[in-house]
């Protein structure tokens, strides 16, 4: 156990070491870009170089975790507990995998601007700050760092109008939503006089819920509901997911969503535990609407990318269940589900990215027909992803489903799990057709399939992800132990200082 005094610059530096290293590396990379930014190989070089940042950040996180760094006193600005390290690890991992997935894809799509990788790193920094924030200011700024980077990344493929439109929609509605989030922060500040999570939590726990605090909480929830794309704040997501460059869609569906959920878990656990009766109905309503609408509308999709977008919405709905549960196992479930979901999403989009061709329309379900005969690896990988998203036993998706349903059930809630299962039942209606189309239907466009080239790094990454999905699905114990252990730490740190 290493106690770190966060009020000193040294302490803050230590505590923020992963973020700092990643930022510093981003600056290094930026310098390199100034020197090499012309050719495809420059692009690749920068991409590989940027991986170093994630490695450093990951090492730093691991070091902090190993040292069992804990705040000496109050956690100022940034949290210092297992949950943050777990979050960091997850987010860094996502960032790194997305980088790998992007390596050749960008060149193939003719996007030769290596700043992409810098923005990806900065977005990761933002996500880490968001998920690790212990203060409203850090939270807000982290969110904005992430958002601004992702706004840009979403519009990165400027030659395509869809990409620009996605960026614009994301940006406009995002800015709109951050207005609400900010209003919430302001009102919480007004109701407590604090920005620090622990202090706010203690303050809120010591008095009856006041009008200002309630409004503030509601507005904050709205801000997060937007970020996680919960119905009815979801409408941007399908359009943006469809328009954005595929690796970035993958990043948004996994990383951004994960960061938002991790922050929301922390927020609900540390700031609003006293308001549990107030926010539970809201989360429940959001969850039900999100699960049902996400799954139903996904049924009507013909574009694979858009279908995955709606599926991502539905999964946000599932993820609201463990949040609703507001318990240790709920927190663990969020972590586990996020791990499984992120791996799967990344892999699924990775396959999708490899199937796309530059300048072509989005991949339709019919484009996949008979893919297995020509590209067995891609279709098996995608099938496994579909099954994992469906929550099929033997995949990690099932373990996640198990945990999140358990977490709600352990609070005596049956309706939400049942809705989740109904959603799962609907979802078979759009996951299975993908598998069906690839493996069972005859090939109609053999030559088109043959042009598909799986970039080697992406192939490796997808293979790793798929292996992880299956291995973790069969032997999840270490992950479960890890998640449970870290989750418990969050709750312990969140115990209100003053009892009401």
């Amino acid at each position, binding site marked *: 156990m290493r106690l770190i005094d966060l009020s000193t610059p040294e302490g803050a530096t230590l505590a923020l070491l992963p973020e700092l290293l990643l930022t510093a590396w981003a600056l290094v990379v930026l310098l390199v870009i100034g020197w090499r930014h012309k050719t495809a190989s420059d692009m690749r070089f920068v991409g590989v170089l940027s991986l170093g940042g994630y490695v450093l950040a990951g090492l730093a996180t691991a070091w902090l975790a190993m040292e069992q760094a804990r705040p000496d006193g109050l956690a100022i600005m940034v949290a210092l507990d297992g949950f943050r390290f777990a979050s960091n690890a997850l987010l860094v991992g996502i960032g790194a995998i997305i980088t790998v997935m992007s390596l050749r894809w960008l060149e193939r799509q003719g996007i030769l601007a290596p700043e992409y990788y810098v923005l990806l790193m900065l977005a990761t920094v933002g996500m880490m700050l968001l998920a690790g924030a212990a203060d409203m200011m850090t939270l807000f700024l982290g969110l904005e760092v992430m958002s601004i980077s992702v*706004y840009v990344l979403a*519009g990165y493929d400027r030659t395509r109008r869809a990409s*620009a439109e996605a960026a614009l929609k994301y940006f*406009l509605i995002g*800015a709109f939503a951050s207005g609400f989030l900010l209003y919430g922060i302001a*009102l919480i500040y007004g109701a407590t*006089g604090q*920005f620090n999570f622990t202090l706010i939590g203690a303050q809120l726990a010591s008095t009856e819920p006041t009008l200002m605090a309630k409004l503030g909480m509601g507005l904050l929830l709205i801000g997060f509901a937007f970020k996680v794309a919960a119905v009815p704040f979801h409408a941007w997501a399908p359009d943006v997911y469809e328009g954005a460059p595929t690796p970035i869609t993958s990043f948004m569906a996994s990383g951004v969503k994960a960061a938002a959920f991790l922050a929301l878990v922390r927020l609900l656990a540390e700031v609003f535990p006293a308001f549990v009766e107030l926010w539970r109905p809201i989360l429940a309503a959001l969850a039900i609407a999100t699960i049902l609408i996400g799954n139903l509308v996904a049924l009507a999709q013909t574009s694979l990318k858009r279908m995955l977008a709606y599926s991502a919405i539905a999964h946000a709905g599932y993820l609201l269940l463990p949040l609703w549960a507001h318990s240790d196992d709920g927190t663990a479930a969020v972590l586990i589900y996020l791990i499984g979901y992120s791996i799967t999403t990344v892999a699924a989009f990775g396959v999708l990215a490899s199937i796309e061709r530059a300048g072509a329309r989005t991949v339709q379900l019919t484009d996949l027909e008979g893919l297995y005969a020509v590209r067995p690896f891609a279709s098996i990988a995608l099938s496994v992803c579909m099954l994992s998203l469906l929550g099929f036993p033997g995949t990690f998706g099932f373990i996640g489903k198990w945990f999140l349903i358990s977490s709600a059930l352990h609070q005596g809630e049956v309706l939400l799990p049942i809705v989740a299962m109904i959603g799962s039942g609907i979802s078979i209606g759009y996951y299975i057709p993908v598998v069906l189309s690839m493996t069972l239907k005859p090939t109609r466009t053999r030559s088109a399939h043959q042009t598909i080239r799986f970039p080697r790094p992406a192939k490796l990454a997808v293979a790793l992800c798929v292996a992880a999905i299956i291995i973790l699905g069969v032997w999840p114990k270490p992950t479960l132990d890890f998640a449970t252990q870290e989750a418990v730490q969050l709750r312990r740190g969140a115990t209100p200082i003053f009892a009401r």
Partner: protein
Amino acid sequence: MLLGPSLALSAVLFALGVVGVLIRRNVVVVFMCVELMLNAVNLTLVALAQLHGTSGQIMVFFVMTVAAAEAVVGLAIILAIFRHVQTVDLKQFNLLKG
């Protein structure tokens, strides 16, 4: 102390910003309405900072920074899409739907 009136004014301005976003079609104007919303929140923060101390004002400072950054990126995005469609009419940005 002008706490109550300030909060009310802030609420009204915020709502006006929301209305603006809802009803305007010019992208730039819509974005300006978002800025209006941020300004309204700033007012709340400032009003509350009067009681709670300067931290609120520091938050306002950060909000302004964020607003500036958003403005830069936002306007760049608007420029980027303008190159494709030659319009700022939000209604025309409907390539992605369904």
